[in-house]
């Protein structure tokens, strides 16, 4: 009910309600974006875009499930788009790799990560994007495979297999275990 009320107040133009939603879920959203993109600037941009889209779509928006699940799915969508765009830029050679470590601090980067997220996002970077998002939405967003499948427009079995492959690969990357 809390989230429904906040969404309603946003619909009425309440900046405070929007800020409340952001504060409530920002850690989860930034973590997902970071795990999917392994780039702090990009994760900041993605969450920014998610909130802009959220406000733009408020008129027709109707909250039927959890707001957190909805926003996490939005982050995953925007992250995928960002990922695709990044690949296009790389192919076109317009975005040279600066060799900057993913979690290095700079004066303009005020999104701070601990050591664990460095390990997580580093390992995630070794997975195909599709596996990353299923792993994160399931383990971090607590979304069921059926819900992920609906959001991704894939079958539930596909979601499950992406998850399984993703977990195996992550364990290998984190522990050096052999993949099956």
């Amino acid at each position, binding site marked *: *009910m809390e989230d*429904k*009320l906040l*969404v*309603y*107040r*946003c*619909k*009425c*133009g*309440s*900046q*405070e*309600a*929007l*800020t409340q939603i*952001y504060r409530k879920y*920002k*850690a989860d959203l*930034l*973590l997902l974006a*970071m*795990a999917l993109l392994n780039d702090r600037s990009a*994760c*900041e941009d993605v*969450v*920014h*875009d998610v*909130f*802009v889209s*959220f*406000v*733009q779509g*408020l008129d027709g928006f*109707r*909250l039927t499930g959890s707001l957190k699940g909805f926003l996490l799915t939005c982050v995953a969508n925007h992250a995928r788009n960002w990922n695709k765009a990044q690949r296009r830029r790389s192919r076109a050679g317009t975005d040279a790799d600066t060799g900057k470590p993913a979690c290095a601090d700079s004066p303009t*980067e*005020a*999104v*701070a*990560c*601990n050591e*664990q*997220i460095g*390990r*997580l996002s580093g390992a995630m970077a070794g997975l195909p994007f599709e596996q990353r998002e299923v*792993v*994160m939405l399931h*383990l*971090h967003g607590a979304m069921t495979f059926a819900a992920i499948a609906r959001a991704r427009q894939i079958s539930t079995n596909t979601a499950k297999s992406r998850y399984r492959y993703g*977990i*195996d690969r*992550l*364990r290998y990357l*984190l*522990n050096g275990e052999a993949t099956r």
Partner: protein
Amino acid sequence: MKPADEIKRLIHESQITASPEADERILCGALDHLAKRRQGGIAHPRPVIWRTIMTSKGTKIAAAAVIVIAAVIGFRFFGNPVGSTLTFAQVIQPILNAGTAQFDIVIGDEDGGAPIMRDLVMGSRIRRTLPGMGDDVTIIDLEAGQILTFSETKKEAQYISLEGLPSIPNYMENLKNVIVMLQQTPDFVVENLGLQEMDGVEVVGFLAKHPRAEITIWADAETGLPVRIEQNEGQMRVVCKNMQFDVPVEDAWFSMDVPEGYKVHQDSTLDLHAGTEEAFIKGLRLLAERFNDGRFPDGVAVEDYLKQAPDVARQLQEMDLSSEEQIALGQTIQNYVLFTRFFQGEGEWTYRGRGVMLGEAETPIFWYRPKDSATYRVIYGDLHVEDAAVENLPEPLDADDVPAPKPAYQQWDRPEFVGRQIDYWMILPEGRARVKAYLTLLKGPQDTTLLPVHLPYAEAPLEGVLLGRKADAPVTDTVNLPFHKTGDGTYDIELPIDKLVAGRNMIIFQWHVSLDDLKFERGYYMTKLQSLVPVVSYELKTGADPNSGFEPMGKTQSLWAPAFSQGRVDSPKTEFGTCGLPIRKRR
């Protein structure tokens, strides 16, 4: 360990934080869009107030409280006739004699769009409709403490049990009882407001005052029939207008049976005592957090809520809340409304929450004095509560908060005198106490000018009697009153009735008591608590002359230390038991 456990733990331990600058960067785009959206104007049409309220389950519940509490107000206090061509007795006679009645009730400001409730009254039942609200009907059974509310269009009905309302077998009969009871109340007075013109009709007005309420009743000067009643009870204003008496009605209009074919919703309960401070704070938080962008409402009275209710109802409708969620919200609001409606504190409450943001811990938004409490409760903007002495209140009591002047002396048709009394005991050297009893006479018989009094100690003779200018004020202009001993400790005082009626109704009696005549128990000199005449309140205070060898017990900065205090009593009396004088030998 499952394959995913390690990953899960790593995710759990992962932390990412954004600085305020990053927050600003991330949110700025969304906030800009929101601001543009707001500037674009999301106008909500302001619909018919009751329609909006009653179409939302949540506010309908809260509205039920308003609808019901209005049932037990309207006309509660009427009084004695006073000299006039058209007397107050004549004006209230149609009400007293009526078997049925019809009238409109408005809570709050009539010109401010306050909703109207139309009542038909028969016996213990009220049929209440809401003009402009189509066919929604509420039948209130005051005897059974139950409400039936139904909609003919929707074919839906619901029963609501009323808790905390005394059983009222007959509404009109109850009004008569209230009138009789009030006529016996010492503090009840009636003023004639004279002739005025109202809607082109010449009307005569009477203002009936009671410590807890003021009623103004306007009657057609030609027919003598009441046309309008205004009541200020606490901080709530209610107007009854378009009054008609003995209107023809049918029993079926007041039936508590649900018509056949109606869907009956689950019963609910309205507890009129549920308006606690805690419930009030919960409602304040809800209204600020959910419905007002974090700001407290402009006002917290019933009429303020009625103004806010359509917006609340509209928001609830648009929130897609489940039925259970709406009911939970409605009950929170209902109990919030009940707090100020059935305010249980002393005097008036003060609200300063308009424009204050929830969380402003330093800003007091509401304060009141609970019943029988010496201190006030102050609620702050973060909704924490502190106790405060009157001198530490956020604002000094303004003119409106200062108690109204005490009514002048009135004569009634009962044989006894009634007053209020404060005794001051000053401990003097040589083990004596000088007692001054300040008696404020409120009412007395019509056929005598002799006031019989009975002193608590027969061996302590009455030494003098003075008539003061006004009650509860320093005596600067006094008149000696003659008195005669009539028995052991009993005296008759000769009263100048004309002076009493003119407001000089405080009489000061003096006598001396030897402390040796008092029982000494467990370190205290025990004294009788006995007033001179039947009183509605009684106090005793003590002081000690510096040369007396005594001093007041405890810390007191006042000359007088309270020894006993009995506020308003249900019926006047003279015996209040005994108490120990709070004095001790000077150390």
